[in-house]
């Protein structure tokens, strides 16, 4: 599989590695062109799905339905953006689902206890970032593999959430009304969560494409040793992406809490699989520093559209699981096969 910048076929190490990953380098080696072609494939798939959806169900293209789908895309998409950063470094974050639950309970109990929602929001975001930071520390300083560290955090965070909430949901109480804008609000005809997704996606895309940090993220994922040798502070990069993942999980959690007017300790169970799925479907490789935000967004849209279509078509709940699983498996299998072919 051709790489972003080193398409000459030679192995580039040392200072040249960093240079090869500059914008100029990528253009010169046709990296962006390659990515555009691939992305258009996924985009085409999404368009096909939407067209077919409109044909299969008269309700699919209705505005009310579209708003619902858009909201679902936003919630899982924000999670996916955080996961994109992590997966680009060839890491993984299995704890995002538990972070969602943890932040949901944190936000709900703070607001329930009378704290004004803006302050509670900030603290909740910090809580998510903190858990992400713990993940990052365990992986960088503790030298634990991302899979292991975040798996442990998945269990620990859920346990802390359950203990703190005593397993009971926590209602927002008086904060329900004022805070509802985040989950249910609509601005200029577009649901607020979609605006939030747009802002985060734009910031993330910009970071990955045009900042040094973004290039470092790709470099770390592509070849950790080469990145370290070329002077990149790989520890800081890796730590940062897990904090980003935790933050994104926190934003998702806040949107959900606002929409449900309650924090549930079981919130987010299984979300990590959805997040990973949309990142993989979107074309970001699990094993190399390849891919990006655009793919994740399209992946999120594909997953949300399929889920919505299955509901609208009245597919039995059991079959829906099968379809979802097959799509994810299919995406990963095809990606791995492609990885083999390219070499």
């Amino acid at each position, binding site marked *: 599989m051709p790489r972003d910048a080193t398409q000459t076929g030679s192995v580039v190490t040392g200072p040249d590695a960093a240079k090869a990953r500059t914008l100029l380098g990528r253009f010169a080696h046709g990296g962006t062109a390659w990515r555009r072609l691939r992305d258009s494939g996924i985009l*085409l798939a999404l368009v096909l799905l939407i067209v077919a959806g409109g044909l299969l169900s*008269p309700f699919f293209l209705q505005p009310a339905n579209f708003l619902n789908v858009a909201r679902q895309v936003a919630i899982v998409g924000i999670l996916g953006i955080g996961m994109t950063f992590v997966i680009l470094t060839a890491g993984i974050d299995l704890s995002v689902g538990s972070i969602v639950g943890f932040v949901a309970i944190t936000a709900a109990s703070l607001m329930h206890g009378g704290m004004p929602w803006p302050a509670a929001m900030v603290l909740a975001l910090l809580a998510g970032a903190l858990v992400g930071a713990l993940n990052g520390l365990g992986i960088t300083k503790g030298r634990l593999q991302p899979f292991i560290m975040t798996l442990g955090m998945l269990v620990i965070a859920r346990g802390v959430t359950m203990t703190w909430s005593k397993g009971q*949901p926590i209602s927002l109480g008086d904060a329900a009304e004022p805070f509802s804008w985040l989950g249910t609000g609509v601005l200029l005809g577009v649901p607020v969560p979609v605006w939030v997704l747009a802002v985060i996606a734009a910031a993330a895309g910009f970071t990955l494409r045009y900042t040094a940090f973004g290039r470092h993220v790709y470099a770390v994922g592509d070849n950790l040793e080469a990145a370290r040798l070329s002077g990149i502070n790989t520890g800081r990069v890796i730590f940062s992406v897990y904090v980003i993942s935790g933050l994104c999980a926190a934003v998702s959690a806040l949107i959900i809490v606002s929409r*449900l007017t309650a924090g549930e300790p079981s919130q987010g169970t299984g979300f990590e699989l959805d997040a990973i799925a949309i990142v993989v479907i979107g074309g970001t490789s699990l094993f190399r520093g390849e891919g990006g935000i655009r793919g994740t967004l399209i992946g999120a849209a594909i997953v949300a559209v399929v889920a919505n279509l299955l509901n*609208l*078509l009245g597919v039995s709940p*059991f079959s829906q699981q099968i379809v979802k699983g*097959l799509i994810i498996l299919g995406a990963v299998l095809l990606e791995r096969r492609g990885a083999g072919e390219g070499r």
Partner: protein
Amino acid sequence: MARRGRRTVILAALALVLAACGGDDGGTESAGGGATAGGLIGFSQANNGDVWRIDQTKDVQGNCSSLMPGSQVVVTDGQGQAAKQSADVDDLLARGVKVLLLTPLTAEALTPVAKRAMDAGVPVITLDRAVDTDVTQHIGADNKLIGQKAAEYVASTVLGGKGGRVIEIQGVLGASATTDRNKEFVGWLKENAPNVEIVASQTGEYRREPALKYMEDMLQRFGPGEFDVVYAHNDEMALGAIQALKAANRLDEVKVVGIDGQNEAIQAIADGDMAATFTYDNAGKEACESAQKLLAGEKNLEKQWVLQTTQIDATNAAEWVGKGF
């Protein structure tokens, strides 16, 4: 087109084919068409993952199609996640359901969407569990009454008025059923039988496996003779507890009480393994009857339709065998 692009298109096509096939599922309903003569009914199930709920879904589908042959029932499964169930209901509303049948996972989280439905003019009938906002009708057996009757049964019949120790295994926390079955049980005992003590209480999430594990732990924590009764909020958990007790050879010293009226539990009572259960109808049939009235244009339904519950114990288990679900 790039290799990967072509593959993704294949993926999308695969998804569509599967969806189209799945849409013609036998037993559920036909793929989305235009307006249906009898009307579109939506049923949002909280979690189609346990025996009682699978039975409830079947009852809703079966009864609604037989009572209203021209109508169509769309079922969604929240898979035990409040956020998903809330999104499911939004999808049903977008689909244009004329009546919403809802069995909410928890009261709090599903209240906003229930309110949205009512505000949009879609009548909402809640089954089994309630939400915290005004709905067209709530149907269910009286969990408060069941909690009290269970307490009375434990204190008087099982313990013979002499007092004792109880381990409680609760259902999903936050569900109105769980709250009622717990509060009323505890409250009745406090008032009428203070010599009955609840020594441990934990949630088994209405599932057999967590209840089994919890019981195993409790058997370690409490030696023989240190507790007398297990009060489980449903039969699945009661059966899990019985399994653990049997494995530890302590079933003869402990009496187990459940709720629901599951066939396996009734058989256990007849066999002497279990003390009692209380029937708890899933309201599927009744919900369809109400839906039929609403679709026919009737506007005023009783706000609360309380279903009857029967105590099944050693005295009547024999006649109830096989009559549960």
